[in-house]
């Protein structure tokens, strides 16, 4: 800030006056009582006093009624010009603050009471804004005390402290100013860089910048785009996932439906198969039963024939018996008749009773015989049945034995075949190993060759590069000019040549000497010496320059062309020389053509180097695969060694692997070997599976056989036991009927006899008669029986004849029947049936199952349609690619987030650094005194020739004393002059820090001349950065310092008196 102009009217004896000031050193001088101090007071009043302040009464011109008026024009630190105008009056004071950009045209910015508030905002001197309660008197602060001190209290600054200021603005302004003053250049550099980095990213209020050039902007846009993309892809992907889920659901349902349908169909098929098997079995069973029936019929027939024969024989026997019985009966009838007579006697009675007892005994015996016979027949039947069972068991055992033998044979054959194939596989594997060994060995050889080639290429690449470098070095060592330089030289030479050509106008001189004298002649640079004959004209011709030097007399030099052309040629020549000399000197050439040739040579060398480099690069590129070759070679070697290791176990004693390999065919087809091995292994595997299954079956069969044999032995033992107990069981069975018939008959006879006897007993005579009658009746009956027996015999014979007639037919029928085959077929059908699972629940109602299967088919078709629809939807949504895109989008988003986070962290770090530096600086700057101690103390030391040391300056710029002889002295202990000088130095330091003006009104009155000189020099020095305004009545004192502006106030101020 500096003061441009002060105007006063009606101020304490000054009627009117205006003083223009300048930057730098201003000296305002005038005699005493002119009003210099009034001018300073007016200045203070303009800045500090409200227009209506009663304190302004001190300004009142005692010679005038008008209120005092002051106008001060000043320029602030931003270059803006302000003008404060005040008319001081307790009742009608007025104030205006005008602003201007150019210093000439002003606009009113504030008026009245606002002026002082606005003014303090601009000045920031620590003066309280008007209206507040405060101290009385002229407002003051540390700054006003420094800049505008009262003439009578120049030392006031030494008793002042910022803590006394009514407002913080002065302290803040000084803090800023002193901070800048005290700042280390390195620190400033660092702070500037940090601030610049922070400003890149943040606004002054700490928000992220969003405009162009903001580091966030591109990243934020990118992240938004990535997020939008990710959202869109996620949406599509979710849609795809939904479709996929549906496809999976439908596929699952479809799989389930198909499985269910297949299960139903399999059940149906299984049941159909079972039904078919059952039918087949039934049919076979039927055929077998029919055949068995046929054979049975034959046997029955044979038996019937035998029976018929037996019966015939029996009937014949019976007839004979009947006939004999009849004869006997006849006899008995005769006897009975004879006896009747006898019976009528007592003796007869006794005998009858005895006979009755005998008959009764006979009946009981016969009944016992009948029971015993029945038991024997039963036992015999059991023995027969057991025999049949044992026979069937024996046949079954034979069948199982035959099957078992067959299976064992097959098993042995399979084992033999497996052994053969295993041998073959081993041999083929050996061949394959040999093949692989050969392949690996060949690969190893090929790769070793490739490695050698690659090494050679690498060597060539290195060599080529070295040669190229050497050629480039050689080219560089030639120092050949480049094309531009050559062009410049060509132009310079052409200019020189053309300029010289302009001088080639043709010169002819005739020399006639009066006395022969040695003459040096230079024709166009060709110098020679001659002595022309006296009196004879000698003619010289030159193109552009001719010089004739008459030894010791004169030298005549004639050049073609005007002076300008000569100068032009000289200049062109000089330019050519200047341009060409260093090049010729550098290259060793002497002509342009040589330079051209040199350049061509250098270019040739570079071209050759380039070509070599290109070849070397190509070789290097081709050699780049060396690591890969090394790796592949290591792999190939390991492979070869592995196969060699395998083969080492197969070689003979003393034989090497290579010798072993050489024994094999050179052209082993690995694929064919592999196929053969695979085929053999498949066969082997199949046979092993078969053998395992067969072994299980054999075990089963063997166990079954053992069981059957055990059962047969048990049955045979039973048979043997029973047969032993009933050796004639066959005869018993054969004669069972007959015997029973006999016994029955005998019993009947005994019954009859018994009856007879009893009848005899009941009525011996009647009995006898009755017996006789009975016998007669019996006789009749026997005769009838005999007749019947004759009839039966006839019938039996007829039946026998019939049966014997049927027999050949039955035999013929039975001949065509193979009962074993039919049995085997039936057994096979039974086995086939038993191999099938039992009828499942599906079989319970096949129609319902079939309907269920059809329903399943329909459901499957519906699901397939839905699946196709979902798949179609998937085709539209993008399917798998969306997953990839989603992954890409996620990666992009993550990457951007990371970059953003990285940027954020980086700028947060700059921000933190900036904040921390500011805090540290603020803390350092809080002690304002420390910033001024050094400059002030140094000046005081300089002023006092080192007598005084460091000034004691507190944090609030409160000066308390100064170091003297190692201890601090209070100011009161110093001389007035020294106090004045220290105060001035401190004020100067404050003004310097603020970069403002400093008013000195006839001060340093107690200072000696030496210090006064020093002080004036100091003022001149500080006036480089501070406006110094000295008001003095001794302007000549300042002449030596050559002030920037010297003003004679007596010419500008008019006194009112």
């Amino acid at each position, binding site marked *: 800030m500096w003061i441009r102009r002060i105007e006063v009217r009606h101020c304490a004896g000054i009627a009117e006056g205006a003083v223009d000031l300048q930057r730098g050193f201003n000296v305002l001088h005038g005699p005493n009582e002119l009003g210099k101090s009034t001018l300073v007071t007016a200045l203070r009043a303009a800045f500090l006093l409200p227009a209506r302040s009663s304190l302004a009464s001190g300004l009142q011109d005692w010679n005038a009624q008008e209120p005092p008026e002051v106008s001060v024009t000043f320029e602030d630190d931003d270059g803006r010009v302000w003008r404060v105008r005040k008319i001081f009056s307790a009742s009608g004071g007025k104030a205006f603050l005008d602003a201007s950009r150019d210093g000439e045209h002003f606009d009113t910015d504030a008026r009245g009471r606002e002026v002082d508030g606005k003014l303090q905002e601009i000045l920031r001197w620590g003066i309280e804004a008007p209206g507040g309660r405060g101290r009385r008197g002229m407002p003051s602060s540390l700054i006003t005390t420094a800049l505008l001190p009262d003439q009578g209290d120049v030392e006031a600054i030494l008793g002042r402290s910022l803590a006394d200021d009514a407002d913080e603005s002065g302290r803040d302004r000084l803090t800023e100013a002193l901070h800048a003053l005290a700042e*280390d250049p*390195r*620190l400033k*550099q*660092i702070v500037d*860089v*940090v601030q610049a*980095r922070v400003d890149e990213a943040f606004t002054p209020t700490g928000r992220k910048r969003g405009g162009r050039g903001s580091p966030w902007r591109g990243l934020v846009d990118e992240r938004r785009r*990535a997020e939008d*993309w990710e959202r869109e892809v996620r949406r599509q992907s979710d849609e*795809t996932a939904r479709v*996929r889920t549906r*496809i*999976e659901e439908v*596929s*699952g349902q479809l799989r389930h439906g198909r499985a269910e349908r297949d299960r139903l169909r399999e059940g149906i098929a299984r049941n159909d198969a079972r039904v078919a098997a059952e039918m087949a079995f039934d049919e076979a069973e039927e055929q077998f039963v029919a055949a068995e029936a046929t054979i049975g019929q034959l046997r029955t027939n044979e038996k019937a024939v035998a029976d018929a024969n037996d019966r015939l024989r029996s009937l014949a026997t019976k007839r004979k018996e009947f006939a004999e019985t009849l004869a006997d009966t006849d006899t008995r009838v005769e006897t009975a008749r004879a006896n009747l007579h006898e019976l009528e006697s007592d003796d007869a009675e006794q005998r009858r009773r005895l006979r009755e007892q005998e008959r009764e005994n006979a009946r009981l015996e016969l009944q016992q015989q009948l029971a015993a016979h029945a038991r024997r027949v039963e036992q015999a039947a059991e023995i027969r049945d057991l025999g049949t069972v044992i026979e069937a068991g024996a046949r079954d055992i034979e069948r199982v034995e035959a099957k078992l033998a067959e299976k064992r044979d097959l098993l042995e054959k399979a084992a033999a075949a497996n052994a053969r194939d295993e041998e073959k596989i081993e041999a083929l594997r050996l061949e394959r190993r040999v093949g692989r060994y050969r392949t690996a060995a060949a690969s190893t050889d090929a790769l070793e060759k490739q490695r050698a080639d690659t090494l050679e290429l690498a060597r060539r690449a290195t060599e080529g590069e070295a040669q190229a470098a050497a050629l480039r070095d050689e080219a560089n060592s030639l120092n050949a000019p480049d094309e531009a330089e050559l062009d410049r030289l060509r132009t310079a030479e052409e200019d020189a040549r053309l300029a010289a050509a302009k001088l080639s106008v043709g010169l002819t001189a005739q020399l006639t000497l009066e006395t022969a004298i040695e003459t040096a002649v230079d024709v166009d640079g060709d110098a020679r010496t001659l002595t022309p004959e006296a009196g004879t004209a000698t003619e010289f011709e030159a193109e552009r320059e001719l010089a004739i030097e008459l030894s010791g007399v004169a030298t005549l030099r004639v050049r073609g062309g005007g002076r300008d052309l000569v100068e032009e040629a000289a200049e062109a020549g000089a330019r050519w020389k200047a341009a060409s000399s260093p090049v010729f000197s550098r290259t060793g050439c002497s002509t342009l053509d040589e330079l051209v040739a040199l350049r061509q040579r250098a270019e040739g060398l570079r071209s050759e180097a380039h070509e070599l480099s290109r070849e070397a690069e190509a070789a290097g590129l081709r050699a780049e*695969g060396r690591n*890969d070759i090394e790796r592949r070679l290591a792999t190939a070697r390991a492979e070869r060694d592995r196969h060699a290791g395998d083969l080492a176990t197969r070689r003979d004693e003393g034989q090497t692997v290579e010798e072993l390999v050489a024994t094999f065919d050179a052209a082993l*087809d690995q*694929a*064919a070997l*592999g*196929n053969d091995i*695979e085929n053999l292994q498949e066969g082997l595997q199949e046979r092993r599976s078969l053998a395992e299954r067969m072994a299980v079956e054999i075990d089963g069969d063997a166990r079954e056989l053992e069981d059957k044999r055990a059962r047969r032995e048990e049955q045979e033992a039973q048979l043997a036991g029973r047969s032993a107990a009933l050796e004639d069981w066959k005869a018993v069975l054969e004669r069972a009927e007959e015997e029973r018939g006999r016994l029955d008959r005998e019993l009947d006879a005994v019954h009859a006899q018994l009856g007879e006897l009893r009848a005899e007993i009941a009525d011996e005579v009647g009995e006898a008669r009755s017996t006789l009658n009975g016998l007669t009746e019996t006789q009749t009956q026997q005769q009838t029986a005999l007749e019947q027996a004759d009839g039966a015999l006839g019938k039996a014979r007829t039946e026998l004849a019939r049966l014997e007639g049927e027999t050949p037919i039955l035999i013929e029928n039975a001949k065509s029947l193979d009962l074993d085959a039919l049995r085997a077929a039936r057994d096979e059908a039974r086995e086939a049936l038993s191999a099938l699972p039992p009828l499942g629940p599906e079989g319970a109602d096949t129609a319902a199952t079939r309907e269920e299967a059809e329903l399943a088919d329909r459901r499957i078709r519906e699901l397939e349609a839905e699946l196709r629809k979902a*798949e179609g939807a*998937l*085709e*539209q*949504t*993008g*399917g*798998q*690619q969306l997953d990839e895109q989603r992954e*890409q*989008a996620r*990666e*992009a988003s*993550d*990457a951007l987030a*990371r*970059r953003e986070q*990285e940027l954020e*962290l*980086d700028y*947060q*770090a*700059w921000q*933190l*650094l900036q904040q*921390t*530096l500011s*805090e*540290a*600086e603020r*803390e*350092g700057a809080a002690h304002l005194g420390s910033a001024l101690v050094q400059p002030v103390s140094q000046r005081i030391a300089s002023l006092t020739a080192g007598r005084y040391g460091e000034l004691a300056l507190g944090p609030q710029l409160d000066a308390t004393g100064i170091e003297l002889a190692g201890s601090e002295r209070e100011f009161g202990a110093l001389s007035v002059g020294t106090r004045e000088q220290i105060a001035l130095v401190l004020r100067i330091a404050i003004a310097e820090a603020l970069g403002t003006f400093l008013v000195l009104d006839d001060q340093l009155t107690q200072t000696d001349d030496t210090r006064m000189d020093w002080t004036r020099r100091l003022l001149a020095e500080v006036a480089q950065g501070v406006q110094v305004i000295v008001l003095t009545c001794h302007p000549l004192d300042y002449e030596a310092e050559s002030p920037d502006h010297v003003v004679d106030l007596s010419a500008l101020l008019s006194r009112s008196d």
Partner: protein
Amino acid sequence: MALTLLHTADWHLGRRFPAFEHEQEQELTRARLDAVGRILDLAESRNVDAVLCAGDLFDEPSPDESWWGGALREFTRRDWTRPVILLPGNHDPLTPNSLYDASHQFRAGLPAYVRVVDRKGWELSLGDNAVVIANPCMSRAGQTDLAASLPEREEGDDRIRIGLAHGSTFDMDGHQANFPIARGAALDRGLDYLAIGDTHAFREVEPDAAAPTVYPGAPEATNFGERDTGNVALVFFPRDRRRRAMVRPEPVGRWTWREETCTSVPALRALLTDPQLRRTVLRLVLDMEVPMAEYDEAERLIGELSGSMAASPRVGVLTVNREQFRLAADAPIEFGANLPEAVRSTVARLRARAETEPEVAGRALHHLYRLVKETEAA
């Protein structure tokens, strides 16, 4: 040999790498186009009879002209008669708006030797003894087995039959593969070789089968963690058709995708000596807590790796994860002499702050360290 083929797939031209910065993304997308040139050069140098491209040659069905234009230039600058067969895959399916459509400039501009599989049951004879049969993808997703639906070998046809399809052989039960390819499809269709695409790794699907089914993989990797990429398959068919075709991977990729975790500055220093870095996509994870001097060196080394306005990057494409990169704030920091008081105070404050905010305070300390060193040097 009766026939030699070059089998490639999954070029993914035009694929975006949005996780990387713009310049890095461009470098990676350009690398894919460069690989196409190398593949065709290889086909020429090996004098193969045909080039089979088994789908996903473009990352989308209608890529930007810069991608199909580049591919078209690679094709048109060659004066070949050897057929190059382009199969639409699930990324670039044959749809009405795709670049394989007859009306598209790409398709229209293809030279005669480049054939596009543009219908089901597409067929091309390679001389009298071999035939290629192919089915294209006609949508982005589908459940059709495009190999299983190739026509069967007819009775008496004893030519070498090569199938060409795109899809996934991943056949886990219940898993929905996109365009699934069932195992055994080659033998089932009477093929001598089934050329397929989709998986980015080189893989012979059924190594023991009589007819090989092969994924050649992507010629350049597309992400971290992909293995066995960067190849094409060279397929040699013996004259005796009963013998199995021989398949060999042939490297064409230039770029390596690599994830590296450095836990010390020497490890980071050692990383810089790797000559392959220029062609590497490096995801560098810094997992270390180091004193300031090492922290600063690590930052300098990362600067070297990533390059600057003045120096080329040492790594082709670099991303750095610093989440676990920490300054050991309690270790001594050598700031040098004559440190301004405010800076000294700032250091003390930041070190105290690092106890609760290690990341931000650590970085702030490093910024300050750098600035102090720079001002010292100045």
